[in-house]
């Protein structure tokens, strides 16, 4: 997977323009939030807490989308759907690639910073 397909380039460009010198702050915030959400997702999956799973996945999806991390957002959508249908297996399956996807997204965002 290349860096370009991980992120929505156009959205990112706009984001950089708008945030200006605050762009690093945005990334830091996103990273902090995302790591916490990932933790919540994993815990919720372990406990079969579908409500918690759904809520966190939905939230994560929204934030990722806002930063142009499209791939990550899609994965979160899958988790959200599985949680709504109370399908634990599907949720776990959807959750599996998320840690990797997050790292990729963060890396791509840092790269785009310069």
């Amino acid at each position, binding site marked *: 997977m290349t860096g370009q397909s991980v992120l929505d380039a156009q959205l990112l460009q*706009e984001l950089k323009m*708008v945030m200006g010198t605050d762009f690093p702050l945005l990334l830091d915030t996103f990273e902090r939030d995302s790591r916490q959400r990932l933790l919540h997702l994993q815990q919720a999956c372990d406990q079969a807490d579908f409500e918690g799973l759904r809520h966190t996945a939905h*939230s994560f999806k*929204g*934030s990722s*989308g*806002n930063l142009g991390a499209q791939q990550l957002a899609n994965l979160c959508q899958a988790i959200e759907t599985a949680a709504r249908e109370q399908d634990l297996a599907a949720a776990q399956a959807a959750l599996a690639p998320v840690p990797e996807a997050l790292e990729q997204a963060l890396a791509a965002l840092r790269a785009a910073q310069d």
Partner: protein
Amino acid sequence: MSLPEDEPLQVLIADDSNSDRLLLETFVKKLGHRVITASDGDEAMQCFHALRPDIILLDALMPRMSGFAVAEAVKQAAGDSFIPIIFLTALTEADSLARCLEVGGDDFLTKPYNRVILEAKINAFRRMKRMHGLLQQQRDEIARYNRDLLREQDWAKRIFDKVARPDYLDIPQLRYSLSPLAMFNGDILLAAPQPSGNLLVLLGDFTGHGLAAAVGTMPLAQTFYSMAEKGFPLPEIVRELNRKLYEVLPTGVFCCACLVSVSADQATVQIWNGGLPEVFVLQAGQAPQSVASGHLPLGVQPDSRFNTQTTWLPVQPGSRLLLRSDGVHETSNMQGEVFGEERLRQLLINADPTEAFERVLQAIADFAEGSARSDDVSLVELRLLPADAPAMAAPAAVWRQEASGGLNWSLQYTLQGEAILRCDPLPILLHALLEVPGLRGQAGRVHTVLSELYANALEHGLARLDSSIKHSHEGFLHYYELKRERLAACSEEACVRISLQYRGDGNSGELTVSVQDSGPGFRLPVLTASNPNPERPAGRGLALVQGLCDTVSVLEPGNCVQAIYRWQAGQTEARR
């Protein structure tokens, strides 16, 4: 609160996602607005109450108090103000988005946020807020004006209620039905006794409604009462009323009116009808007579074109006159038909005059049953009293002025040439006499003496009329026509001089009235009150004077009559 076009707003951003919140905050600040942030529903409510934002960007799904709950709470707390709520949401399903609007959201913004769309939405809501503010301002203004208007109408109503002197209407000759809001519909009924014993009645119907219609009633009523109590005859009163209203009322506002003067002996009525429906005269055993409007309403024509001609009718005791506004025949029923003139006439033809008033009112009520008619019906019945009814005393309230006249004075008043035909000196002279303490309570008698002597000078001294012409009622009218003709034909040197001399104190007094004319002279008719000639109803005049006065004499060469009237405190009845 009105917002100028580019005024920055205070924006509350409530989102539990830190990065989303930061993103939005930066977006919105870059648009020039001030931002306050909250990370959950409770914090959002606290910010709202503390800082009263202009617009709220609200995440739909938040822990603890959800976005939906916040929206509901905000809308309730906002009350009359318009505080737009834009939901922030990653939801995509249509029904979820619709739900946002149902709970009180005004719009939604989907993630990922589109800066251009966000800016457009914020601007759109700013326009809406401005419009909303304007509407509220106007609404408040209207509410204020409305309150003021109602209060003014209430004050005006209280003034107008005093203008029409309702106690003057409480006499046995009058029965009437006026709507409770009559004054505000422009309908007015006035009645006043005159010193001569005549009764004057006016029914008026001003154009328009509300304050504009009611305002004209004040000059009308004041002029009416003032002139009536001074003894002015009906045509002069009508003329003055027209003049007053013509001066005062704006174009297009006028008063349809009917004035009736009932003679003291209840035998004649004089009617002036300008713009009201016909006056019905109902007498037992006869078909109803009517006096239609023969003039334009009051306030339409300048004085120079105004016609004061009246209709005279002989009447019998017990006759009834019906005066009405057009509300009577214009009353409509549920089907939208009007009561109409024809129905009214039929009713009157078939009814007993004594019951006509009630029958008409009942018929109208029955006709209009159930329909939402406006209470515009004004119906007045004027009853001629039987011949032996006690003479009506002028209410004591009529004479309000403090006595200012001296106890020894004299006055001479001369009319010459054309003035004889055009001027009536009696009201002024009577006014002067009534200033005298002691004479005030005897207005009727004093007036009789003055007017009979004056009439005598005109009719027999100058016009050389023969009283026998007045035998019949046709002759009556002919007599007065002849009088006018002959007086008009008098030369410029013709004159009438009235001299008044008074001596007295608080207990008694003596008034000497002399009336001298420039005619060749006449002999005093040999008549006394004790044997009146029933075949000669006229010529009663001097007999009356003889009955009231201590002495009546004719001075040589026969064209001057002098009467001496004496009064004594405690003597309230006329001597006959």
